[in-house]
C-alpha cells in the first residue's frame, strides 16, 4: 500500500517535471510576444504581462493596430518576409510530406516484409543516408544548384529536404512494418495481388505508423534549417526557420521575434494534434502478436 502511494507520487512528480520542462520555455517565450516594448525591459522580469497587448502578433502579419488608448502601430517592417516565409514553409512542408509518404509507404513495406536481392546492402545505404548530417552534403549541392538554376527555388528546397525525410521515415517505418502480423498469406487466399494487398490491407492496417511517419516528415520538413539557410535564404523561396534566426540580430524587436515563433509553432502543432488522434485509436494493432 505504502509503496503504491510512493510510486504514484514519483510518477506524478515526473509528469509535472516533464510538463514544466516542455511548456515553461514555451510560455516564457510566448509571453514576450504579448509584452509591450516597455515591459520587456522591466526588472525583475514579470511572469505575466501587466497590460498584454497583441501589437506584435498583429503587426508581424502586416496589419496595423490601434491600441485602446489610441496609439497607432503600423505593420512591422519584416511582415512581408514573415508572411511569405510562413506560406513557403507550409507549402514546402506539405509537398515534402506528401511525396515522402507516397515514396516511403511502399518502400518501407518492401524493406520490412519482402525479400529481394541485395536487400542488406540497400538497407545499409538507407541507414547511411540517415546518418549523414545535412551540413556535410550542402557544399556539392550548393554548387550543383547554382549551375542548374535550382538555388533560391522552392522546388530545389523540396528536393533536398526529401533527402532528409525519405531515409529517416523509411528507416523508422521498416521497423514498424516488421512488427505487424503477417497477413500477406491471408490476403493472397482472399485473392489480393501484391499491390492490392498493400493498398487494401496494409495501408489501412498501418494507419498508426503512417500517421507517425507523416508527423515526423512534416516536423523535419518544417524545421529544416541548414538547407534553407544556405540555398534559399534572402530569396522569395525562404522558409520560416532562417527568417526567425534573422531576427536574432535585430535587438529591439523581441516581441516581433516571439510573435513569429508563435506563428511558426501553429502548423506543426495543428498537424500533430489532428494526426495523433488516429495514433491512439489504432494503437491496439500492436498488441496483437503476429
Amino acid at each position: 500500500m505504502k509503496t503504491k502511494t510512493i510510486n504514484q507520487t514519483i510518477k506524478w512528480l515526473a509528469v509535472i517535471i516533464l510538463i514544466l520542462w516542455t511548456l515553461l520555455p514555451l510560455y516564457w517565450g510566448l509571453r514576450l510576444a504579448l509584452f509591450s516594448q516597455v515591459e520587456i525591459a522591466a526588472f525583475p522580469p514579470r511572469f505575466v504581462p501587466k497590460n498584454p497587448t497583441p501589437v506584435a502578433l498583429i503587426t508581424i502579419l502586416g496589419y496595423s493596430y490601434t491600441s485602446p488608448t489610441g496609439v497607432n502601430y503600423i505593420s512591422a517592417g519584416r511582415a512581408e518576409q514573415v508572411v511569405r516565409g510562413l506560406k513557403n514553409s507550409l507549402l514546402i512542408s506539405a509537398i515534402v510530406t506528401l511525396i515522402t509518404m507516397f515514396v516511403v509507404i511502399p518502400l518501407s513495406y518492401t524493406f520490412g516484409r519482402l525479400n529481394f536481392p541485395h536487400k542488406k546492402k540497400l538497407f545499409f545505404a538507407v541507414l547511411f543516408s540517415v546518418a549523414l548530417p545535412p551540413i556535410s552534403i550542402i557544399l556539392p549541392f550548393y554548387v550543383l544548384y547554382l549551375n542548374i538554376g535550382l538555388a533560391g527555388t522552392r522546388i530545389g528546397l523540396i528536393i533536398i529536404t526529401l533527402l532528409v525525410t525519405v531515409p529517416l521515415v523509411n528507416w523508422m517505418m521498416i521497423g514498424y512494418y516488421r512488427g505487424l502480423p503477417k497477413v500477406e498469406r491471408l490476403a493472397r487466399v482472399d485473392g489480393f495481388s501484391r499491390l492490392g494487398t498493400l493498398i487494401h490491407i496494409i495501408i489501412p492496417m498501418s494507419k498508426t505508423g503512417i500517421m507517425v511517419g507523416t508527423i515526423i516528415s512534416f516536423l523535419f520538413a518544417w524545421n529544416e534549417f541548414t538547407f534553407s539557410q544556405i540555398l534559399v535564404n534572402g530569396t522569395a523561396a525562404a522558409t520560416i526557420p532562417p527568417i526567425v534566426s534573422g531576427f536574432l540580430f535585430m535587438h529591439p524587436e523581441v516581441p516581433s521575434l516571439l510573435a513569429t515563433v508563435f506563428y511558426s509553432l501553429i502548423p506543426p502543432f495543428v498537424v500533430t494534434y489532428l494526426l495523433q488522434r488516429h495514433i491512439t485509436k489504432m494503437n491496439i494493432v500492436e498488441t496483437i502478436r503476429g
Partner: protein
Amino acid sequence: MAKITIQNLVKQYDKKTIAVKDLSLEIQDKELMVLLGPSGCGKTTTLNCIAGLETPTTGKIFFDDMNVTEVAPHQRNVAMVFQSCLLYPHLTGRGNITMSLHKRKLGKEEIAKRVEDAASLVNIQHMIDKIPAQLSGGERQRIAIAKAIVRDPSVFLMDEPLSNLDAALREMLRAEISVLQKRVETTMLLVTHDQIEAMTMSDKIAVMSAGELQQVGTPDEVYNRPANIFVGKFIGSPPMHLLTGNIKKEGNRLMFGNKGFTITLPAKKYSDALYRLQGKTNAILGVRSHHMSISAADKKPNSIRAQVYAVEHMGKENNIIVIDEHDNKIKIATTPQNPFQRDDMVWVAVDPENIHLFNEETGQNLCL
C-alpha cells in the same frame, strides 16, 4: 467439395533444403484428412502447395480432374485457417469475414446474409463487430473459421489451427471442427504435430516425416498397424516401447528374443517375417504400455526381468516405470491397486498378440 489428388509433389527451396520428397496422396471428397508429423517434416509446405501459396518444384495437384498446380489461391476456391489465429487486426470480425468474399460479385444483402450464416455456424454472432484485439484466442479462431466457411470453399485447409490455444479450449474446438466439417460437407486437410488431435478429429491420417509420407490410414489403422517404427513411436502416448532382438525358429514355433527374454510369436501373423528379413534375423519389437502387465511371481512365458524404477500415480491408473537388464526404461500402465515399490524385482509380461515387429534396418513393419 472436391477430391484432392497430389502426384509426386517435390518442393525444394535450395540445393540443400528439400522440404517435400516425392509425395503422392489422395484425399477423398468430404473427407477430413489430418497431415501429422513433427515440426519441419514438410507438412505445412505441402499444405501451402495445395493452397497455392507456394509453387511445387515438380509434381502436380488436382482438385477433382482440374490441374490446379499453377492456379492462384483464390481461383482454386480454397479457404485457409492459419496458425496463431491470423486475422486482419484492423477489421472487425464482420470485416474479416466479408474480406473472403471481396472477389465475388455478390450483392450487399447476399454478402450480409452469408456472413450471418457463417457466423451462426460457429456461434460468434454476438462478437462479430469486435476487432480481433478485443477477442480471446478461441474467439479469434472461430472468426477465422467463419471467414473460411463463408466462401463455401471446395477445399478447407487448416494449418495447426489449435496450437496457440490453451488445453481446455483446444479440446472443445477439436470436436467442434470435426462436427462442423461433417456439417458443411467440405473436403478438409488439417495439419498438426499433435497426434491426439490427429487421432480424435480425422477420418484419415497421413503421417509425414522428413518430407516423406510414412503411412496413410484411418486412426485405427495407424494406431494398431503402424507401417514402420516412426509411425509406431509417433502415435500413441506414452510412446511405443522398442526392444531389439532376433527372430528364431524353433520347430514350428517362431520366437523373438535377446539375452534376457524370449517371446513366442503368433505363428500365423508372422509366418513370412523371416522371409521378409531376407536372411537376417535382427528385428525390433514394439509394444505399447497397456499391452504389458507386471507381476512379482516367478518367471512366466513372454516376460522380461526388470526392476521398478518409479511409480507414477495418475488417479485412474498407475504408471510403473521399470528398468530391464539392458537399461531400457519401460513404462507400464497398471491398475491403481498394485503393490509394487521402487527397487522391487518384477516380471513384465508382454502380450504377444499385441506386439509389432519391425525390420531393424528399414524400420518397416514385418507383417504388413
